[in-house]
C-alpha cells in the first residue's frame, strides 16, 4: 500500500477490522474459559455483530483493492 489518502483510509479500516475481531475473540475466550450467564448473553449479542462489522470492513477494502487493480 502507498501513502495516498485513500490507502491511509483503507489501512485505518483494516486496523478497525482487526480491533473488532480481537474484541469478539476476547469475548469468545472468556466464554470458553468460564461460562457465566452474563458473558454468554454479551457474547451472543456482541460477538456476531463485531465479527459482521469486521467482515464488512475487510470486504470493502478487498473490493476497493480489486477495483484499483482494475480487476472489477
Amino acid at each position, binding site marked *: 500500500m502507498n501513502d495516498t489518502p485513500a490507502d491511509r483510509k483503507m*489501512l485505518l479500516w483494516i486496523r478497525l477490522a482487526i480491533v473488532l*475481531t480481537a474484541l469478539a475473540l*476476547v469475548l*469468545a475466550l472468556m*466464554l470458553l474459559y468460564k461460562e*457465566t*450467564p452474563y458473558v454468554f448473553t454479551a457474547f451472543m449479542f456482541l460477538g456476531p455483530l463485531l465479527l459482521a462489522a469486521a467482515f464488512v470492513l475487510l470486504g470493502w477494502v478487498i473490493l476497493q483493492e480489486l477495483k484499483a487493480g482494475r480487476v472489477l
Partner: protein
Amino acid sequence: MKRAVFGALAALAAQRLLASPETEGGVPPPHGWIGTTNEWIRGIGIVFALLNLALLVAIWIQLRRGKVSTVSKALLFGAILVLPVVVVFLATANGMRESMTVQACGACHVMDGHVKDLQNPASDSLAAVHFKNRYIQENHCYTCHSDYGMYGSVSAKLDGLGHVWHNMTGHYPKPIKIAHPYSNLRCLSCHGEAQNFLAKHEKEEIPKLMAGTDSCLDCHGPAHKPEEKTAQK
C-alpha cells in the same frame, strides 16, 4: 504438520486443565481416556482463539511497519474471515451446553436458595428427590424447566435471557415464583410410560393430567423448598 500436532497437543492439555468434575463430593462422571466432546470443544476453541489473536497481533505489527505483503493479506483474510467463524461456532456450542448446567442457573444469587435445596440430601422437595437419586443424570434445572421438542430449547434460552435481564435490573418478585403454570407434560415425558406410574394412577386420572386439569404437583409438591433468607437480593 508441526503446527497441527502442536495444536492437537495443546488442545489435549487445555481440556485436561479445564476439565472440572460436575459432581461435588461424589464419583465424578466418566470421561473416558480422551475426554468428553465438550472438553474438546473448549480446548480446541481456546487454542484457535489464542492462535487467531496471535495472528492479528503479527498482522498489526506488519501494518505498523508498512509492510503489507501478499502473505500478510492472505493471513488477514484467514484471521478475520475464516478462523473467527470457527472460534465463534465453538464458543457458541460451549455456551449453549454450559448454560444448561445447575452452576449456570445458580450463578445468580437469587437462585441460591433453590440450588441449596436441590443439592440438600436431607430435603424432601420434589427437585431434591430427583437430584439425590439421580433420576436426571445432568442439567437438572434445565431438564425440568424446558419444554420438549425443538421450540422447547429456544423458549428456555429466551426465558434465560429474560432472567439475566431481571437479575441485572433487580425487577423480580420475592419470593421467586415460576412465571407460567408448570406443565404436567414435562413430568409425563419421563414418567408417562413408566410401569410404576401406570400402576399407581387410576386410568381416568391420566387424561386429566395430560390435559393439565390436575397438576402433578397437587400430590407430589412442593417442587422446591428454598430458604427465603438466602433467596433475597
